[in-house]
């Protein structure tokens, strides 16, 4: 039986998020103080050693990323917190920021010290104006207490563009432009916001930092799966009894998440599919449920951990209908900068609608497969590269649903 383990949400329900004194009484800002007594390279080394990998979906080693920025000689550097969570079915960053905003700010300040930056931005999605208020209050309290020293944090509000979760698009948006991804390299840790070295990390990644500095990288890396240690905050949606959030060690299996913590399928129905990682994640069949949720294990079954969204579908669900809806999402959210994505998401949606209406053919399925493969390698950014995943994985794992549409 899977059990929760709260590291990121260690203060959830225990402190008043709008009282910095509560956070400090729980040990808050001691890690920042400790970090500042260490050498910058020692801080980076500790984060590297923990093997904390980015919680936004890309899974890059956070300490290594920090090191890239640290090594660049620059008067100005930036720390950016990616709070633009837009993956449908995901709300873990909101839970973290609403309940423990100071842990995120402290994590950013530690990063700022480590790389040599005095300015941080939290880019919070436009759909969360109430979270923006919480963050602004938390920042004001931290400044009034003087705990941040010379590190400044400012909140910027997104405009409802999913693509701005991509770090270079997010940077463009902070600069006041259309949120279109940049060509890479150079990568943001070297040339980012206003052409300066910039670390963009997810909310959950930053929330992990204070406790890593407090307890050490060795402590952290012993938790969960060795290739992706620590915990992951998951949000359960769809046909599952407990539609809520859980924080679990990363060696927990999908089956334990859905049937243990999730309480199984609602209404006494049978399991059919689960899509993990948000709307760009692969669809997983019953046969793969004993996979652990860590980054590499998920990749090995052709799926992703992504943002940690767990969208469960019961036996009554029409997979083609759900994927057609998802295809519409990607057509809507494609920024239009590169043609494989702009045209690809449009045609993909068109074909999925045709199939869903019972007007498609086996040829459409074949074409979808080819288009999906092209997009996954030819699109400029992660949006277009991941957009075909729901289509490709359902053609593979739930082909009967497609067949039923034209037989």
């Amino acid at each position, binding site marked *: 039986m899977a059990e929760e383990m709260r590291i990121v949400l260690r203060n959830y329900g225990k402190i008043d998020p709008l009282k910095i004194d509560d956070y400090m009484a729980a040990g808050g800002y001691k890690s920042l103080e400790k970090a500042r007594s260490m050498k910058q390279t020692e801080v980076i080394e500790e984060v590297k050693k923990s093997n904390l990998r980015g919680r936004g979906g890309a899974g890059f080693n956070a300490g290594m990323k920090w090191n890239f920025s640290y090594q660049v000689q620059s008067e100005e550097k930036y720390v950016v917190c990616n709070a633009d969570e837009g993956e449908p*079915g995901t709300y873990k960053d909101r839970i973290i920021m609403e309940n423990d905003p100071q842990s995120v700010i402290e994590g950013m300040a530690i990063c700022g010290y480590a790389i040599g930056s005095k300015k941080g931005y939290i880019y919070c999605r436009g759909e969360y104006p109430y979270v923006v208020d919480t963050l602004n209050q938390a920042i004001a309290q931290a400044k009034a207490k003087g705990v941040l020293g010379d590190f400044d944090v400012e909140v910027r509000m997104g405009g409802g563009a999913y693509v701005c979760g991509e770090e270079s698009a997010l940077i463009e948006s902070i600069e006041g432009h259309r949120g279109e991804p940049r060509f890479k390299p150079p990568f943001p840790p070297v040339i980012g916001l206003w052409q300066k070295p910039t670390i963009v990390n997810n909310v959950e990644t930053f929330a992990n930092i204070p406790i890593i500095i407090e307890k050490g990288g060795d402590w952290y890396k012993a938790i969960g799966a060795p290739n992706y240690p620590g915990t992951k905050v998951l949000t359960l949606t769809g046909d599952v009894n407990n539609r809520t959030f859980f924080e679990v060690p990363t060696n927990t299996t999908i089956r334990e998440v859905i049937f243990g913590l999730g309480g199984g399928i609602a209404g006494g129905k049978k399991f059919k599919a689960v899509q993990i990682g948000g709307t760009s994640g692969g669809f997983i069949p019953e046969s793969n449920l004993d996979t652990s949720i860590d980054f590499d294990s998920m990749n090995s079954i052709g799926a992703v951990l992504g943002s940690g969204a767990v969208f469960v579908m019961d036996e009554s669900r029409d997979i083609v209908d759900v994927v057609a809806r998802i295809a519409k*999402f990607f057509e809507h959210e494609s920024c239009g900068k590169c043609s494989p994505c702009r045209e690809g998401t449009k045609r993909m949606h068109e074909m999925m609608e045709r199939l869903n209406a019972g007007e498609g053919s086996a040829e459409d399925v074949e074409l979808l497969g080819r288009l999906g493969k092209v997009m996954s390698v030819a699109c400029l950014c992660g949006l277009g590269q991941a957009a075909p995943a729901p289509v490709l994985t359902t053609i593979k794992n739930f082909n009967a649903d497609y067949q039923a549409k034209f037989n």
Partner: protein
Amino acid sequence: MANYEDIISKYQDLPGGIIEAYHALQREYSYIPEDAVRVAAEVFGIPTAKAWGVATFYSYFKVGKRGKNVIRICESAPCHVAGAAEVIAALEKELGIKMGDTTPDGKFTLELCECVGQCQATPVITVNSKPYGDMTPEKVAGVLAEYR
């Protein structure tokens, strides 16, 4: 016009501040007036085309009139399977307008949107960004009454 400039110029010295200025305009008007885009271009010293390009890129912004209360219905996959379509039908029936339209009295606009991050309570709608979860057709009239 002067009023637009008052709102926008508060963000003039903020690097990349045009997006914050657009948010401020929307808080005031519930949309971005077309003339305000021209004013923003002047204040930030960028071509009007660019100011227009930014304003129309983001789905949270709407250039051109919409109702005082903006109702958005999430149609992302988790809300879709939880019955968003029935809620959409109930909203359209109750207000007598279709998705994307505004009531003749200018009080309500209906819009589809993607995930608003309140997925513990699907399907979700928002009214002026305030979320209402576990929506059913039966709950629609009650929510609207708060804004009528």
